[in-house]
């Protein structure tokens, strides 16, 4: 088994690495250490994954530590509970460790990882999934959210009640919780969200709009029972 050196030592030895891709069992040379390390000396996600591909467990631990919040949040959004989400996170990181050498760099590392997490999570719920169907017309959704009502400010007031907002979110279908988590909670750019979800940008925006209106409607309904 080849000796695995920490990435920092490799840099000291002058080895250059390509931040964009890693061949199975090898590394493309072409980039520089500077491209993988911020001025503060913190290794980038690419660098950590590269080192993981070489079997560096320290780098892998750092990679898991850094990305675990995002992975776990997405898994919880899809699955609705932390216990299942942790199981999915474990499967995600196992898959990431095994697949690190195949990472081609055609997306950001976190995007790649979240796609894995998403696949694992949806596989987990496949049997009990309630697919989105019989979608109401957008206007009907908006009316339920208070569009055109006498008190559209109700959702504004209720949205400042964090507990009510979390309750409203929990009542949504997994597809809507998922996209709201990625876009509005984790704050990812729309193009990244579309990539993670495997959607075109227009399709992503359409789903996001429905998800937001559904959240508003759920929140408005919650207000009547509070």
């Amino acid at each position: 088994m080849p000796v695995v050196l920490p990435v920092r030592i490799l840099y000291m030895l002058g080895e250059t690495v390509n931040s964009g891709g890693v061949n199975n069992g090898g590394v493309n040379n072409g980039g520089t250490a500077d491209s993988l390390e911020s001025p503060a000396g913190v290794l980038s996600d690419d660098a950590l994954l590269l080192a993981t591909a070489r079997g560096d467990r320290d780098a892998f631990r750092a990679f898991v530590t850094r990305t675990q919040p995002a992975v776990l949040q997405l898994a919880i959004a899809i699955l609705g509970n932390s216990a299942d989400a942790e199981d999915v996170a474990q499967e995600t990181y196992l898959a990431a460790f095994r697949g690190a050498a195949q990472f081609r760099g055609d997306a950001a590392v976190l995007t790649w990882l979240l796609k894995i997490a998403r696949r694992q999570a949806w596989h987990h719920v496949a049997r009990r999934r309630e697919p989105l169907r019989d979608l109401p017309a957008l206007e009907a959704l908006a009316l339920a959210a208070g569009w055109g009502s006498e008190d559209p400010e109700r959702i504004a007031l209720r949205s400042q009640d964090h507990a009510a907002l979390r309750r409203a979110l929990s009542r949504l279908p997994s597809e809507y919780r998922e996209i709201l988590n990625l876009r509005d909670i984790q704050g990812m750019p729309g193009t990244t969200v579309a990539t993670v979800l495997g959607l075109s940008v227009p399709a992503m925006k359409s789903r996001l709009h429905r998800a937001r209106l559904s959240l508003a409607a759920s929140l408005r309904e919650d207000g009547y029972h509070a």
Partner: protein
Amino acid sequence: MLNERFAGGLLCSQVLNLLTSYVDSELPPEALMQVQDHVAVCQNCARFGASFHLLVRCTASAHASLTENSASLHRILCSVERRLDQALDQTQD
């Protein structure tokens, strides 16, 4: 049903369709101007749009920031490393 209004070159239902792009600042200039002109005179759309915008902002802040959950992280790491070690032991046998 909403009594739709036509203002700024748009019907209320058209403004509704553009609302997510509007709050995300992703509308092209011409469409942005049309929406702004519409909400300047349509109270229904102005009020609902403002509430919708606030909801989107509050959704982000309502959830705990993505900080590391130490207990979860520990469990995940321990389990993953145990399984990786087991796999390694199996390949070496």
